[in-house]
């Protein structure tokens, strides 16, 4: 294991080139005796902060070596379903990291921020086009916050109409956890709608559930089951007829971008995970961004700020002055602008044709991989259905026969040099792997993945213990960690170095 930074520490070691060497007379003293103001003394820390003291060279080494212990898109195939782990173009990072963007204070006047505002304005416009929505606010900082914005707008809409009884949000049982969590956070009661054997929403269940208490329905299409909800128009009609609105969870937009627009399917609000569809990096857990788009009805409620353009082509921030019914502010300033610039750059590189190709080839890759795995004897969750940009296989059979789980398969894939697909989500399908290859992977890579799966299945038959103990030999410097004990982690939480 790479030692902890704390273990590399030695008292009084310093990187003095990062000492700001204040020019103000005797900074230490001044800090305690402001200009004519009462003394700072009572507010001062008594002991030094117990941080590690490490030389810059050791810091560089430590983090370089740590980075090498990660699987990532830049090093490995990463078929993590629902997460769209595709190539993050380096140019998008380079252009976003320019000093002119990085050193700009958020409260700089708009007249001195026209360059960045132009990008954001055009991004809003492009996202409207892409989703078939009327207006977009870029401020949500991730998909889940986009959901929050959408659901809060639905709430605001009903309230603005005086329709106060709509306290229920309908959510398919297969939905991502953020959907019910968000609904709850907005004060709604969650009502689950069942999925049928074909992966479609059960229309009878939906019909039974809708009514005057229905605020709306949260849906992603293609669904988290990797199939396209074919009766979406009918679903939309049912919900709308009952007075509810439709929220589109945009996490799966990669499947349909440039081909099918959520607006055309009847959705009233949508978020876009730019760290998925628009290829901004996931950064080991973020930052992402979750711009939210709406149709005409929800427009007045969009979160502020947004970017507007006046008759002279000058850009400015739109706030509650222009949007008095807004659900309000969702981030301190304007959201994750650095991420949005990367998304903007990506969209300018792809254009309309490019976005449509994204959907086409993501779909081709998923269907191809599904077909190859099915041919190799794996059980797909919905054999009668086309895959979208992702698909599910279930290892129920393998589990029963050889006592190996989806998790065992996942861990063993790491030994083969592949990141694992999403496991145990959606919860409906037992022992499931949700596999999303994305459009940026080559056929050769998919073929290698199939070979690995087949080899692991062979192992499961002949030496199931080998799987149960996987991973064994993850290819990282120094040799990888073997399977980690989650239970102990949760039972005896060790969440930081003791001081």
């Amino acid at each position, binding site marked *: 294991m790479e030692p902890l930074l704390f273990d590399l520490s030695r008292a009084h070691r310093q990187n003095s080139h990062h000492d700001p060497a204040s020019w103000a007379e005797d900074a230490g003293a001044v800090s305690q005796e402001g200009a004519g103001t009462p003394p700072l003394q009572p507010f001062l820390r008594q002991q030094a902060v117990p941080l590690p003291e490490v030389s810059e060279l050791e810091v560089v080494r430590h983090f370089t070596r740590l980075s090498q212990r*990660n699987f990532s898109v830049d090093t490995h195939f990463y078929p993590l379903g629902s997460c769209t782990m595709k190539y993050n173009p380096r140019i998008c990072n380079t252009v976003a990291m320019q000093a002119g963007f990085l050193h700009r204070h958020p409260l700089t006047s708009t007249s001195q921020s026209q360059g960045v505002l132009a990008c954001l304005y055009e991004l809003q416009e492009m996202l409207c086009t892409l989703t078939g929505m009327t207006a977009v606010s870029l401020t949500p900082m991730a998909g889940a916050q986009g959901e929050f914005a959408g659901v809060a707008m639905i709430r605001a809409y009903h309230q603005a109409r005086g329709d106060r009884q709509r306290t229920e949000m309908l959510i398919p049982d297969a939905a991502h956890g953020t959907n019910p969590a968000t609904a709850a956070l907005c004060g709604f009661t969650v009502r689950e709608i069942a999925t049928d054997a074909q992966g479609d929403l059960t229309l009878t269940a939906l019909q039974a559930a809708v009514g005057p208490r229905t605020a709306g329905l949260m849906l992603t299409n293609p669904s988290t089951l990797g199939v396209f909800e074919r009766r979406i128009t009918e679903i939309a009609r049912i919900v709308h007829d009952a007075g509810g609105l439709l929220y589109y969870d945009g996490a799966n937009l990669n499947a349909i971008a440039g081909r099918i627009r959520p607006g055309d399917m009847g959705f009233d609000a949508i978020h876009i995970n730019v760290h998925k569809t628009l290829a901004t990096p996931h950064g080991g857990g973020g930052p992402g961004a979750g711009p939210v788009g709406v149709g005409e009805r929800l427009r007045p409620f969009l979160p502020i700020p947004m970017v507007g353009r006046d008759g002279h082509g000058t850009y400015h921030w739109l706030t509650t002055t222009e949007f008095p019914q807004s659900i309000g502010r969702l981030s301190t300033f304007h959201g994750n602008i650095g991420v949005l610039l990367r998304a903007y750059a990506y969209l*300018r590189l792809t254009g309309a044709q490019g976005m449509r190709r994204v959907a086409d080839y993501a779909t081709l890759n998923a269907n191809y991989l599904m077909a190859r795995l099915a041919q190799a004897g794996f059980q797909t969750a919905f054999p009668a259905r086309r895959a979208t940009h992702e698909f599910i296989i279930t290892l129920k059979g393998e589990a029963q026969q050889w006592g190996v789980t989806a998790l065992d398969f996942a861990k063993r894939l790491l030994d083969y040099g592949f990141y694992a697909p999403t496991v145990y989500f959606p919860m409906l399908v037992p022992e499931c792997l949700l596999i999303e290859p994305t459009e940026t992977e080559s056929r050769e890579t998919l073929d290698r993945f199939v070979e690995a799966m087949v080899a692991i299945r062979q192992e499961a038959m002949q030496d199931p213990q080998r799987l149960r103990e996987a991973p064994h030999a993850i290819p990282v410097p120094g040799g990888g960690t073997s399977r980690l004990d989650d239970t102990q982690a949760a039972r005896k939480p060790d969440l930081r170095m003791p001081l």
Partner: protein
Amino acid sequence: MPFIPHTASDVQEMLAVLGVESLETLFEEVPTELTWAGPLDLPPPLSEMALARLMRERAAQDAPLLCFTGAGAYEHHIPAAVWELATRGEFYSAYTPYQAEASQGTLQVLYEYQSMMAALLGMDVVNASLYDGATALGEAILMAIRAKPECARRVLLPTTVHPHYRQVVESMLRGLEIEVVSVPYCTEGGHTVPEVLSQWESRSFAALVIPQPNFFGILEEIHTLTDWAHARGGLLIGLVNPLSLGMLQPPGQWGRQGADIACGDGQPLGIPLSSGGPYFGFMGCKQAYLRQLPGRIAGRTIDKKGEPGFVLTMQAREQHIRRAKATSNICTNQGLMTVAATLYLALLGPQGLRRTAEACHAHTVALAERVCAIPGVTLLFHRPYFHEIALRIPASVPRLLTRLEQQGIGGGVALAPLYAELEDTLLLCATEARTREDCDHFARTLATLLAEEH
């Protein structure tokens, strides 16, 4: 095709495996009326070369300003190693570390981040980040409400908290029947005084929020206020600037028992201004409230061989397990920013952090001296402050700011749009990055502009 590796023959062979004639067939389940016929009305694709030029022009379109603006985002020195390392592909292009064994890099960084932040805040545990300071405050309030089911669903929120934070809190709590009580500030000191709080003496509340320093840069009476809240059965949420803690008392040591929850924005710890984001929110709490903490948490455990390793843990709090009953809906957080902050803290160390905080403050003191020497310019409040000052200015502040910008200076923030009663006032900040010449230049320019006004 940009970013798509398929050759024409790949496509043919793959379609053959699928037994279909064309790509269109794969979309056959989509009702035809839903399929967009033509190309979308997006701008035509640019080559990378053309994009690079466009973005170079956009980045250079507005002149850089000499920054004296703070108000929640601060220009600090960021060691070059921070972003050279944080943007390494293995950090940059990885997902949330679900498969722990293949994500030890990110996980160990998170554990180190949690350890260092806990040390800085004086808190027992820290999560692996939230979106930003404002949403972190919102989450802290929700957490306090959950942690105090015996209390009224009420929180006391001083108006000395950043106005944008208060707006975000309002947006976040709207549907939840939580009463947010605005606590007015003392007009002399610019701080929150127990006398004003005493109105809520008898009413139950789940938490009192205390910002340190507050939006005006003023230091609050943290000890008194913390003890006040605890005495009345409420939690104390400390909202802090993490860099200030190089010098100021950590929330864990406020009052007799310390703050219960500490949160804030991590931007000062190595995150560039970036026009407002991405930054990151941090949150820590006492051990007792761990199970109410939102967001991801990394933990140390052992592997089959007994070797130490790291995993995401305490996941039962989270949306992907607990769904509608989760502590928060957060999923993607601001992971890479915590990598940067960990690097920043590691490179500065305790001494560097203290010296940086001291320099920030000393420079602001020096700036205060210079500007207060200009006739008519005075400090608005007379209390200890940290690295940010509110000034009364004998002029129209919006016009002044425009003229400063024309001279290449980002001259702070007008308070009037945020506090109607504070006409003709300005919030200014000088970090360690401002040189003596910068401060002299600012004061000179300000004096000249004010003289011209009269």
